[in-house]
């Protein structure tokens, strides 16, 4: 299916792969270096220059990182979580983009998992058998 059969000229082909952020990145699951899920891609940090003329030789803005965090409330009630509630993951930590986004960091490096860590340390481990991982 083409885009409504318009007669627009074909876009130039840049070097590298073309992906659509909303389609290929948002809501993808994040896996840490041990293949443990550590969240999803909630947003992207884009280095867009403000108040400057970007025509001509100014390079295109770069995506500097992805943002993950607690967004359940805003998903249900609408709006956007404050920036402080999101954890920035620098792009250099991304090792693979596919059906999931693989990171080189480890789960304990993510502050966004504090609730899960707190539940693990204060509740789950007090349950008989809760101190060892399921086999």
């Amino acid at each position, binding site marked *: *299916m*083409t*885009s*409504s059969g*318009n007669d*627009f*000229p*074909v*876009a*130039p*082909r*840049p*070097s*590298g*792969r*073309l*992906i*659509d*952020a*909303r*389609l290929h*990145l*948002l809501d993808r699951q994040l896996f840490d270096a041990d293949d443990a899920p550590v969240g999803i891609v909630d*947003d*992207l*940090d*884009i*280095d*867009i*220059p*403000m*108040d*400057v*003329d*970007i*025509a*001509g030789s*100014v*390079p*295109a*803005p*770069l*995506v*500097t990182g992805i*943002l993950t965090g607690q967004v359940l409330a805003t998903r249900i009630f609408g709006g*956007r979580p404050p*920036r402080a509630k999101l954890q920035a993951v620098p*792009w*250099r930590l*991304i*090792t*693979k*983009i*596919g059906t999931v986004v693989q990171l080189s960091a480890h789960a304990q490096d993510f502050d966004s998992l504090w609730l899960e860590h707190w539940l693990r340390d204060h509740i789950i481990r007090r349950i008989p058998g809760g101190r060892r991982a399921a086999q």
Partner: protein
Amino acid sequence: MQLSELLELPLRDAAGQQVGTVVDVRLAIGGDLDDRPDEPALFGLIISPHTQSSYLGYERSDARRPTLLAALLRWRHRGTFLTLWHASRVSAPSRSYCGRASSATRRCCATMTNAPPVNTKIPAEFPAKHTGLESTVVGISRCGSTMGEACRTLRSNSPQRRRRKRHGASRRHSRAPL
């Protein structure tokens, strides 16, 4: 700036009329996606004149199945186009529309060239006789913003705009600028 601040932004033409909404952002990634890909560069904005929802990737290919879903999406996203963020072949902007927003509205805006938009379909290869007729974003400004609000208005020409000019219509948009 966050991606969520760009998505669902209204796009306005030179006359201030709303011509569409940013439904997605196209990125160009260098390197291998499976082995530490490079930082993506913003390639362009996908604009839909009729809806704020995603096109689900249908605009990227010739997929026509399932027929019912394809027909529904094609109808909902009719007129969707891609406006390039930056292209080295693009000539200097023929017009600058980013008017100074009043302090009352604290409106932010972007300026784009007056060239036509381009197809959202991803080409198989770089066209040999590309004419450079892209619509490109040439600036984003935080006009009069003191509250840290993000850009709220983008401006560009669009198929709707060109169609209106062709038919001599002067329909006013009903949605007030944010």
